[in-house]
């Protein structure tokens, strides 16, 4: 395409990261700054009878202690994505809870002191009197008769009941199928654990009534909008939100959290800047979690392996209160993906979103799509197993064929969206070539006779990225309370140096680099002449931020489109400088030249200079090359691919070793292969971790048992083999770059590949399903039970 796109250009972000010059939120200190520490509930479900702050208030260095009653005038957090077209019995957190808590770790009081240690000391002196209430932590238990009730407006703890597809048709197809497999699949709770926890700093200037707020944020414009318009009722122009360097998010930094608004309110109350930075322990309890589905599936098939029907009923645990976009995750981003890469003729999905006495659940890398992929890819294996067929044959038999694109899945489950482009056999065949499947099956047979248990698992997944067409996803559609377009502004300064500003808000993805590659190539300028600026509502156009694998497909396209506008103007000014007609000039390699006379040319630097000076411009043109584009995607993009995992199980201990992992992904055109591979590497690690190790677990009284890195098993590099990656390239017709998005691919694809591999390895023990995480103890138990 150009000089930079498609190349592994080194990341612009890295020098400041590796030298430590990058400043994160906790590095920021403002003169006069105070520190806030939040007192959190010790119980999962309790009435707050009394909070005694008298001792804490008297502690040295303490400016004050506040409770929920002091913030009764502050609105609760908004739930900005309620499931579309249905009633959502929404209950959202307040800056501090007032009468009642619904999960352990909810904020109930705050201490502000001159330094962090003093605030912590004082916080430990707050005495809270609770009246304990009965607790329910599992969503399935919460909807049973007689379960403890969390919220008055949500009978049986149900927030919403959502469905898609055709239930009658699917039931009929199931009853007419040669075989039906029923299974319960659990997609356990995960805790994101971005390397940097959450934090906020707020400063208020009374003379201008303006706030400056630093947040660990994936979406500063969205945070500003929600905080000002929905929580405080002030103009959004009175608040500047800055996301400094952000140490990862995986979704959990999209949301407007109570503590963010608490710090904003306190800054005004006290009149001094205030910092709040959570500890890792608080991060475990109070930052959003992900997944937590319990799902009944029924899948019908003909004897030849053709799948006739898929019925899915999911109970989704949303936690004690709703986080910002919680209801959208187990509905739109889940149910609408349940056709996978397959031409299932009948599909139905019913979802109950349920309150429990657990931490809030919201988007976590993949957000709904890993859960859907898990259901579909496990279903394929269950059918193959039932029919005694090969898992690859069943996949190929049911694939949507490459001449069927654009493809619309059955029963309207995508609600009008069509799969943009694909060739699902291509990455599968490529992966099979890399792997030598036939030889593996022989080796597997042989090793079983020697007491070694090898297994292989496939995931031939699809995902929806580049979220999303605004009208489709928005109010009146899927219920997202805004748009999902993205913005970019390009300014070419007098010397020809370029500044791109974007509403995307990268926090580790490398988007600063990839956007510069796009702009540099399109303008025909050196890569180093392009700066990309972001993460500050002052100076960037409004945009929706970075999540949902959208910053290349949507944000990158906005950059591309803004460059086209710049080039149009450059053509007019260049023609004017060359005393040619605008119709007679072309823009190539950073120059405007007269068609057929490449020597008669003006460089973009010369044109930018002329535009910036404004001495002589074409009639009707304004000075400066400065253009903004807003790109609203016509569709999501639909990446796909094949992941293959090989495991070996140790019979004596039940331990799983990942012996081999290979992935052939098709994410459309690739802007920067190194960045893309990096995203896939990290995603696979997280997805494998869900299959084998990670699990957010509460005990019956609602205490988080996996509340620290001592108990919550994040993988380390020695847990994984060298990942073998390759790709096929099927450009997306959805955007001019042909990119599909890659940020979530690894987590979406990998989890079922690993689980399928473990189940395959355990076949001699009669195992057909096990729920994650597949710990050594769990596997040892089934080996013991079923005998060798």
């Amino acid at each position: 395409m150009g000089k930079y796109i498609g190349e592994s250009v080194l990341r612009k972000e890295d020098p400041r990261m590796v030298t430590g010059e990058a400043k994160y939120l906790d590095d920021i200190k403002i003169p006069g700054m105070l520190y806030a520490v939040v007192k959190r509930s010790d119980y999962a479900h309790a009435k707050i009878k009394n909070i005694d702050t008298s001792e804490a208030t008297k502690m040295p260095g303490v400016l004050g202690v506040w409770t929920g009653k002091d913030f009764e005038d502050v609105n609760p957090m908004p739930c900005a994505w309620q499931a579309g077209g249905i009633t959502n019995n929404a209950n959202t957190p307040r800056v501090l809870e007032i009468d009642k808590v619904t999960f352990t770790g909810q904020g109930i009081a705050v201490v502000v002191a001159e330094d962090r240690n003093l605030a912590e000391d004082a916080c430990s002196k707050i005495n809270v009197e609770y009246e304990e209430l009965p607790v329910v932590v599992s969503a399935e238990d919460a909807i049973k008769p007689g379960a403890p009730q969390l919220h008055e407006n949500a009978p049986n703890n149900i927030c919403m009941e959502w469905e898609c597809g055709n239930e009658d048709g699917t039931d009929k197809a199931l009853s007419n199928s040669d075989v039906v497999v029923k299974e319960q699949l659990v997609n356990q709770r995960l805790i994101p654990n971005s390397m940097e926890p959450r934090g906020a700093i707020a400063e208020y200037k009374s003379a201008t009534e303006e706030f400056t707020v630093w947040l660990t944020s994936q979406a500063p414009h969205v945070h500003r909008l929600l905080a000002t318009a929905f929580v405080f009722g002030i103009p959004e122009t009175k608040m500047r939100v800055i996301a400094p360097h952000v140490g990862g998010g995986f979704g959990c930094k999209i949301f407007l959290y109570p503590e963010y608004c608490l710090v904003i309110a306190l800054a005004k109350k006290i009149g001094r800047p205030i910092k709040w930075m959570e500890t890792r322990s608080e991060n475990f309890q109070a930052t959003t979690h992900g997944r937590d589905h319990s799902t009944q599936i029924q899948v019908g098939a003909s004897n030849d392996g053709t799948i006739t029907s898929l019925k899915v009923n999911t109970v989704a645990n949303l936690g004690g209160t709703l986080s910002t976009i919680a209801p959208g995750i187990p509905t739109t981003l889940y149910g609408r993906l349940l056709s996978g890469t397959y031409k299932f003729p009948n599909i139905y999905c019913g979802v109950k979103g349920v309150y429990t006495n657990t931490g809030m659940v919201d988007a976590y890398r993949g957000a709904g799509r890993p859960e859907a992929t898990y259901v579909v890819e496990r279903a394929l294996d269950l059918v193959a197993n039932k029919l005694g067929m090969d898992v690859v044959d069943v996949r190929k038999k049911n694939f949507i064929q490459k001449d069927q694109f654009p493809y619309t899945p059955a029963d309207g489950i995508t609600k009008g969206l069509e799969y943009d482009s694909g060739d699902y056999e291509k990455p599968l065949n490529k992966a099979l070539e890399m792997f030598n499947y036939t030889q593996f099956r022989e080796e597997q047979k042989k090793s079983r006779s020697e007491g070694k248990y090898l297994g292989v698992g496939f995931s031939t997944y699809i995902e929806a990225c580049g979220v999303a067409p605004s009208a489709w996803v928005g109010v009146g559609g899927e219920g997202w309370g805004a748009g999902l377009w993205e913005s970019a502004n390009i300014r070419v300064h007098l010397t020809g140096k370029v500044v791109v500003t974007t509403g995307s808000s990268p926090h580790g993805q490398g988007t600063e680099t990839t956007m510069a590659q796009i702009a540099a190539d399109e303008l025909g300028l050196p890569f180093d002449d392009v700066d990309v600026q972001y993460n500050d509502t002052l100076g960037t156009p409004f945009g929706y931020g970075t999540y949902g694998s959208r910053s290349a497909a949507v944000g990158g396209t906005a950059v591309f489109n803004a460059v086209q506008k710049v080039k149009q103007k450059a053509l007019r000014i260049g023609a004017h400088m060359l005393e040619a007609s605008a119709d007679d000039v072309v823009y190539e390699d950073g120059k405007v030249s007269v068609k057929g006379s490449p020597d008669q040319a003006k460089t973009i630097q010369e044109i930018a200079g002329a535009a910036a000076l404004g001495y002589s411009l074409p009639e009707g043109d304004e000075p400066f090359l400065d253009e903004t584009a807003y790109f609203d995607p016509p569709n999501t993009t639909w990446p796909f691919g094949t992941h293959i995992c090989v495991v070996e199980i140790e019979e004596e201990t039940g331990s799983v070793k990942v012996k081999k992992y290979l992935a052939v992904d098709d994410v459309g055109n690739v802007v920067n292969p190194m960045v893309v591979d990096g995203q896939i590497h990290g995603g696979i690690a997280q997805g494998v971790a869900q299959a084998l190790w990670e699990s957010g677990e509460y005990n019956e009284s609602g205490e988080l048992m996996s509340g620290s890195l001592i108990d919550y098993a994040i993988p380390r590099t020695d847990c994984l083999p060298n990942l073998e990656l390759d790709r096929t390239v099927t450009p997306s017709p959805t955007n001019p770059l042909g990119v599909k998005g890659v940020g979530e691919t690894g987590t979406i694809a990998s989890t079922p590949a690993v689980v399928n591999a473990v189940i395959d390895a355990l076949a001699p023990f009669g195992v057909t399903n096990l729920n994650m995480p597949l710990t050594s103890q769990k596997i040892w138990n089934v080996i013991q039970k079923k005998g060798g």
Partner: protein
Amino acid sequence: MYAAEFDYVRASSIEEAISLKAENDDSSLLAGGHSLIPAMKLRLSTPQKLIDISGLDQLKKISKNGSHISIGSLCTHKQCAESEIIQSNCPALSDAASVIGDPHVRTKGTIGGALAHSDPQADYPGATLALNATFVAKGPSGERTIEVDDYFIGLWETALGEGELLTEIRIAINSMNANSCYVKFPQPASRYPYVGCGVSLSSNNGTCSDIRVGFSGVGEWAFRDSGVESTLKGQPLNDSTIASAADKAAEGKTVLNDHFVSEEYRRAMSKVYAKRAMMQLS
């Protein structure tokens, strides 16, 4: 988390550390800090004074001392893992040191700190039980030695007196200790052992003449397993005798049962890892 307020003093000699400890009721000795500091940050431990002994260089040496190896209590796990003296004379100890935590922990954490802290989930206890180690403690009333069999006496509890400082770990130089190992089944998050098993074994013409087996991570504190030892002692070393001995692992012992790992599984894994350790040495 943030620790509660505390005072800090740096000791410049062993004697000063001992007298500081005697003068301050509510004080803790700080060596590598890799157990104490996290406990303080969680406010599980709230000493009023920390006595930093990490500058006492005389406690950082590993040497051969006549009939035994002398390991200064402030030697880091990394030192213990990489020491050729330890590797060749008591490999169970270097095995254990090399699988503690991660490189950060191994670079800062010390053997004396770990053994004085006596976390039931720590690795050294199982290895030192197998090696029949001797601990040297100094206190206000002078120096004494404590045999390992008398050292681990309870959950987080050792035979060290309140004012005593663990200065040295001694391990006898003999063929049995030279034929030792420590194997570990780590918990995937913390990498503390679900089961850690140290074994030292001597044999004569293919018959086990002596064996010591120590377990970490299995019970509320580390223990020696006489059931396994007596079953193998005097027997010819082969797969079948080792399996029979391993089958006795943790028999009659209280075994931990927590949210993540059942007692049944820990017992079963104790047998597996005892077998592996004994197989490795036979």
